[in-house]
């Protein structure tokens, strides 16, 4: 334990209403890969931001090379050789690839000026060392998501790093790219760097990692050597309960075809999307980040321009060019980016719930506050939203309760199809279970659900049927009985069902 190069001891981080990290420990060793394992919301991303000086911890100690250190800004941690590849790409769209790699650490000539030619040649070297084929002079905006990710990795390698943090690096990569990344991690390990690898994919943990640390709900659960453990043990540490119980999927009688989408196309984002949805069905849509699944759902909801193809509800063609038309046709969308797209944080709960149907509730254009309140009371109670009063601002609620308000808002419009995009992303386990339970109730009461998710257990546990998307196309359809984690992942990463 003494030779750890980088340690966190009893580190805490508190946000208003959330204890994101609660006295966690973590140790990284030179020449070893430590996997940090935990569900969404376990505090992994907060930890990365604390380690890189983006957040300042509210308690505990950070120890580097045996000495306690304090990071006042990302610059401080950078200076010690701690570099991170963040989950969201933190790059500059309008700058060149080379500059993105060296920003914050420009090579300089003797005359105090930036040495652009060295920058380009060194970028070329780094990029070819990770097998990324691109021109360092290209503007980042012109690259694909996968390529941008490689730039992010190249950026982390541009400095003489002692500690490399990879925050879910494979989420947006194709099968082929993932294997190249593995090799890269192995090279880094051989160079003696301490590596923190954050993931929730078990195959990655067992191929790559030497050690593991497990977090749950912002708390440290345990650590050890990978060779001394197995998957079942890790799962148990991660969730502390069996998986089956989490997915209360009820068997519901599936009715007539309700929604029929055929040949939906977009110029750059997706093509030839055809599927149908039956009454009482939960249709799971799986795909990697950037596979076009959210774009398809948003097109269905009318927020995207330049879409061709037909959408039929109950056999009749409907034209949807705006959310208003989608709502009028009984299609509602619970977005992935809840706080940005789903809800108006600064408005009270009841006003959020009534927002899509203000006009129906109003009398001669004048607001009927009593009616709004009654609506909010009815649906928020049904969803068991926890709040001190219905007049409270949504921003004061926890993530899970905010999500419930979004769902309440849409249920109040009496929809026929409800699209849930990553419905449980970033919410605590308790609320997660409540959302899943509620999904079951929804289909029981005759609604149809489309659920987009990148969490395999959720997709497998809740869906009646699964569509898999890759690079803007539907690459497979699996029934609940046929679907296995291997099949789904293989399809999503560009393989075929056979393997």
């Amino acid at each position: 334990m003494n030779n750890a190069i980088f340690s966190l001891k009893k580190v805490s981080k508190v946000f208003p209403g959330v204890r994101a990290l609660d006295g966690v420990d973590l140790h990284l060793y030179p020449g070893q890969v430590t996997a940090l394992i935990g569900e969404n919301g376990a505090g992994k991303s907060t930890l990365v931001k604390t380690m890189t000086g983006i957040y300042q911890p509210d308690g505990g100690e950070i120890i580097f090379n045996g000495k306690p250190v304090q990071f006042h800004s990302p610059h401080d941690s950078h200076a010690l050789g701690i570099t991170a590849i963040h989950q969201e790409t933190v790059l500059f769209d309008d700058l060149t690839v080379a500059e993105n790699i060296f920003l914050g650490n420009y090579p300089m000539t003797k005359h105090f000026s930036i040495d652009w030619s060295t920058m380009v040649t060194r970028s070329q070297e780094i990029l070819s060392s990770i097998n990324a084929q691109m021109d360092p002079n290209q503007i980042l905006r012109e690259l694909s998501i996968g390529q941008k990710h490689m730039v992010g990795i190249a950026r982390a390698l541009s400095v003489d790093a002692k500690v490399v943090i990879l925050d879910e690096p494979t989420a947006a990569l194709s099968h082929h790219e993932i294997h190249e990344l593995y090799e890269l991690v192995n090279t880094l390990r051989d160079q003696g760097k301490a590596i923190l690898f954050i993931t929730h994919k078990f195959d990655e943990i067992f191929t790559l990692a030497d050690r593991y640390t497990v977090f749950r709900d912002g708390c440290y659960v345990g650590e050890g050597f990978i060779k001394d453990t197995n998957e079942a043990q890790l799962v148990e540490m991660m969730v502390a309960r069996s998986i089956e119980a989490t997915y209360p999927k009820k068997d519901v009688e599936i009715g007539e075809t309700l929604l029929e989408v055929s040949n939906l196309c977009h110029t750059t984002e997706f093509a030839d999307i055809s599927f149908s949805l039956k009454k009482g069905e939960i249709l799971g849509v799986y795909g990697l980040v950037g596979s076009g699944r959210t774009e398809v759902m948003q097109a269905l909801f009318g927020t995207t321009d330049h879409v061709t193809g037909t959408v039929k509800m109950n056999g009749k063609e409907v034209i949807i060019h705006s959310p208003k038309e989608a709502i009028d046709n009984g299609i509602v969308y619970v977005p992935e980016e809840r706080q940005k797209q789903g809800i108006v944080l600064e408005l009270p709960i009841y006003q959020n719930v009534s927002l899509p149907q203000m006009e129906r509730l109003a009398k001669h254009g004048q607001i009927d506050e009593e009616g709004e309140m009654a609506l909010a009371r009815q649906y928020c109670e049904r969803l068991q939203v926890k709040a001190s009063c219905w007049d409270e601002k949504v921003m004061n609620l926890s993530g899970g309760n905010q999500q419930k308000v979004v769902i309440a808002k849409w249920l109040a419009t009496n929809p026929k199809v409800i699209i849930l995009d990553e419905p449980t992303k970033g919410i605590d386990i308790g609320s997660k279970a409540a959302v899943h339970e509620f999904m079951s109730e929804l289909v029981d009461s005759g609604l149809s659900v489309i659920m987009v998710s990148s969490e395999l257990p959720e997709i497998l546990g809740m869906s009646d049927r699964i569509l898999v998307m890759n690079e803007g196309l539907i690459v497979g359809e699996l029934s609940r009985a046929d679907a296995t984690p291997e099949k789904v992942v293989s399809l999503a990463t560009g393989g075929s069902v056979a393997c």
Partner: protein
Amino acid sequence: MLKRLIYSREGVLSIIVLAMFFGVGVISPDFISLSNSVSIFNDTSILIMLALGQMLVILTRCIDLSVAANVAFTGMFVAMVNQYFPELHMSLLIFLSLFIGALLGAINGLFVWLLKVPSIVITLGTMSIYRGATFLLSDGAWVNSHQMSESFIGLPRYEILSMPVLGWMAIAAIILFFWAMKFSVWGRNFYSAGGNPMAAFYSGVNVGKVQFYAFLVSGTLSGLCGYLWVSRFAVAYVDVANGFELQVIAACVIGGVSIVGGLGTVVGCVIGALFIGVVNNALPIIGVSPFWQMAISGLVIIIAVIANATSDKDKARIILRNPNANDEIRAN
């Protein structure tokens, strides 16, 4: 490479400016003579310098509406110092103008940096404060040419290689900016802080401080231009450069500096300013009343931002890995 140059905003804009320039030359050959070209450049020098300062501010997602008021205040201040202490050396006066300008710019910058107050509100406020302070300073009186010393008026007019010092100052500013914005970390920080403030923060760039520097530079240049303006027109009064901030912003917007930050070049900015300079100088020659000037710059701002907005839209991200689409990308 050549194709890329021609299709770039700077390329298109240069062609338009040159076309305008020679177009007017067809009507009046004197317009394109070397001496007149130098004089157009000289006339535009102040606009160029202010636009370069404003570019830094706009790059960091802010805006500085107080530049013209800063010009008026600093101009009045140095003019009055010159009036009462005519024996004071010019280098001291220039230093003074830089210092006062920097101070006024720093006030804007500090509010934006430390309090994170929207720059439009702060500079809208300081715009009227600085202008009002000019009135308080001068008590509404004018400082006329006969109250200024000879060297005070003569300096920007002094010709080196048949170009006045004023023009050389603009050239120096352009060269300095060109180097700083391309080859200094300090200059590149404006692009990163404005292009993606969050990512810039992750990379160890102090975004607020960069914004402060932008206002500081914009203020310093405004201070210098305050002296140059007053000296060039040989008069200082409260309404000096009234509304000029709009022309400065127009020069930036026309030159392709994106109002949402992070995008813009020194070359574009200078051509944007020259565009306005050529238009202003050409109007009397082609027989259009100077009253058209304001409407034209308004129209040009609108057209330029529309052009910016439409060209941004084409750069959508791409998910489909469709061979045709890829070919198109390669072709570009």
